[in-house]
């Protein structure tokens, strides 16, 4: 929820009976009074409450929603925040590859991601978790340490494995969502409609990669740290009580840029590109390097690949 002042709290000054129209609207309005009571009344606007699933909105409704969101963000952060709605580019399926032999575990990707994607700073939400693993054990999460904190990285006898959303071809998270608030878009990016998610966290239980994160408290994002270039399904500021995740920086990649983590990586461990493009670097890696998928046996079929470059 945002801090903007609604013109009229639902169930308050306007009788719900006057909201005519479809059955859906009527039933929505009928439940509005209850919802207002539940949320403590005040910050929930009628438009926000009645907004339907993003995939069911007409073009005009999407524009209205975006205009409303931009107004809300303006009021909250005192600056202009653009919310894009860029659709998937035809003929593109994004793929990601990470060179385990190069990654040094510096975690610059983690922080660049937080900055780029407007994550809550307090409590801090991180979409990338870098695991320090024993070389002896190989890829075994039971021997992983996500809280390593030495003077210097890399540490002797260890290798580092960053884990983020694997943008599965068969995502268990979207399958279990009871309301269809999360889905795999045409370019292979698994997205969340933050205005439709009910916060049941079933997707988090289903995800084998710990890639989904919940806004347990009100997200705190200092106004001067807001990244104003956002996407509706990506890095726009999130409300409390919903799930969020890595979207391969949908706001950047759909405009032909690299994700923030790829751009920041000092060792060049991170590779990104179009899987359908035969001449892309990602295709070269898949065809010429030793590649593996994390938790392959679960048949989630990630579009995120780990490889050994050297």
């Amino acid at each position: 929820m945002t801090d903007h002042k609604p013109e009229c709290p639902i169930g308050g000054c306007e009788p719900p009976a006057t909201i005519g129209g479809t059955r859906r609207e009527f039933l929505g309005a009928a439940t509005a009074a209850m919802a207002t009571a539940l949320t403590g009344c005040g910050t929930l606007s009628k438009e926000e409450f009645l907004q339907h699933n993003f995939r069911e909105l007409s073009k005009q409704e999407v524009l209205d929603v975006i205009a409303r969101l931009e107004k809300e963000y303006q009021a909250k952060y005192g600056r202009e925040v653009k919310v894009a709605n860029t659709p998937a580019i035809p003929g593109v399926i994004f793929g990601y590859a990470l060179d385990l032999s190069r990654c040094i575990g510096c975690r610059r990707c983690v922080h660049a991601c937080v900055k780029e994607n407007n994550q809550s700073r307090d409590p801090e939400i991180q979409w990338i978790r870098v695991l320090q693993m024993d070389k002896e054990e190989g890829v075994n999460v039971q021997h992983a340490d996500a809280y390593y904190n030495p003077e210097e990285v890399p540490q002797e006898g260890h290798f580092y494995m960053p884990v983020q959303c694997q943008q599965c071809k068969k995502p268990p998270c979207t399958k279990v969502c009871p309301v269809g608030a999360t889905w795999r878009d045409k370019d292979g990016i698994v997205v969340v409609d933050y205005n439709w998610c009910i916060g049941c966290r079933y997707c988090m239980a289903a995800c084998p990669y710990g890639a989904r994160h919940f806004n347990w408290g009100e997200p705190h994002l200092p106004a001067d740290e807001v990244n104003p270039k956002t996407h509706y399904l990506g890095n726009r500021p999130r409300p409390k009580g919903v799930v969020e995740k890595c979207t391969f920086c949908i706001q950047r990649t759909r405009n032909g840029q690299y994700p923030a983590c790829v751009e920041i990586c000092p060792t060049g461990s991170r590779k990104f590109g179009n899987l359908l493009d035969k001449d892309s670097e990602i295709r070269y890696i898949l065809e010429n390097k030793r590649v593996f998928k994390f938790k392959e046996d679960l048949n989630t079929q990630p579009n995120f690949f780990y490889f050994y470059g050297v």
Partner: protein
Amino acid sequence: MFTLRNFSGFLSGTLRLITKGGRLYYAWVGFLLLLIAIGAGAYIGQLKDGLIVTKMRDQVSWGFYIGNFTFLVGVAAAAIMLVIPAYIYDWEPIKEITILGEMLAISALIMCLGFVMVDIGRPDRFWHIIPLVGRLNWPQSMLAWDVIVLNLYLLLNWFVVTYLLFCAYTERHYVKKLVLPLVLLSIPMAVSIHTVTAYLYNGLAARPFWNSAILAPRFLASAFCSGPAILLILLQVLRKTTKLTIKDEAIFKVAELMAYTMGFNLFLTAAEAFKELYSGTEHMVYFQYLLFGLKGHTTLVPYAWASILCGLVAFILFLVPRTRTNWVTLNIGCVLIYASVYIEKGMGLIIPGLTPDVLGDIYVYRPSFTEIAVAAGIFAIGFLAFTLMLKAAVPMMLGEFTITKGRTPVEAPPQEI
């Protein structure tokens, strides 16, 4: 028209019955209202600050709320333990208490829905899950299935109970052609609510602790011990406080059935433990965390063993005819089996399913004060619903409150529950 007028009389009569009672009745209702107020206060705090006031975090994203939900679905499903013998075998002594089982199911379902409601991050968007109004991801999501079967089962039980009581009130015999199919339908429905709830967890390949084929049978077996355990104690209380005649025979029969389900429950648990511990794959870590502790974290260990011990002792008490028919040992057995299943289905299922998390992180979860207060409030709502239903139902079942007698409440004897 006649029926409609009678029904409004039935409703107002019910209202009259539940508002008038002895001192003990008022004290009990007052106590429950106090608990509900405390729970509501805690819940308002949670609405304001978000689920951060719980101890759940990304690693353990479900906790006490969902644990209680799972346990209570079992209690709701267990009502058929009474329906099966009563209607399938047409076994008379148990028939009067079937309606009590169904009321227990209704109360349990109210609590289940309450626990789901307090667990979701955006309760203001609950309408998204209502079929046709929202966007139910059916048939893909097991949670969507759960919403449907739980509500259907609630409606079914609510209808049957209301209908039977209304017939008792109007001094007519119920239409067997209507009731029997519904009661028979409630049997597979009861199985389905607990099966679907098991499938909620069962279907997640990411969580090996839950991803076992015998999870649903285990759910049913444990539910068929814990649900009747509550009823057995309740029936004894009712015998003492009301004029309901419940024969010893009926109670002992249910206790005998419980002995079989308990044995089966223990066997299934052992089968699961054997598979994990003997094969010793990396999936064993969850069992290890539950039973022995992992990397120095032993929070669940005492609970896990207490649950196993309680289950074993209760099984012996119910298995031996002499202890099964002795009121002291029978009641001890009921409390033990209840405790055993509550620990096992609550914390013992959800927490080790999520700990260590999918990336090997061990986050030690213990419910916060808010979670406990909210849970107490929901339990109080369930108990209150059951108390009120019982308060109205008992005089109707006894024929003390009917359409002819209902108008002269002066003659009605004081009811204390």
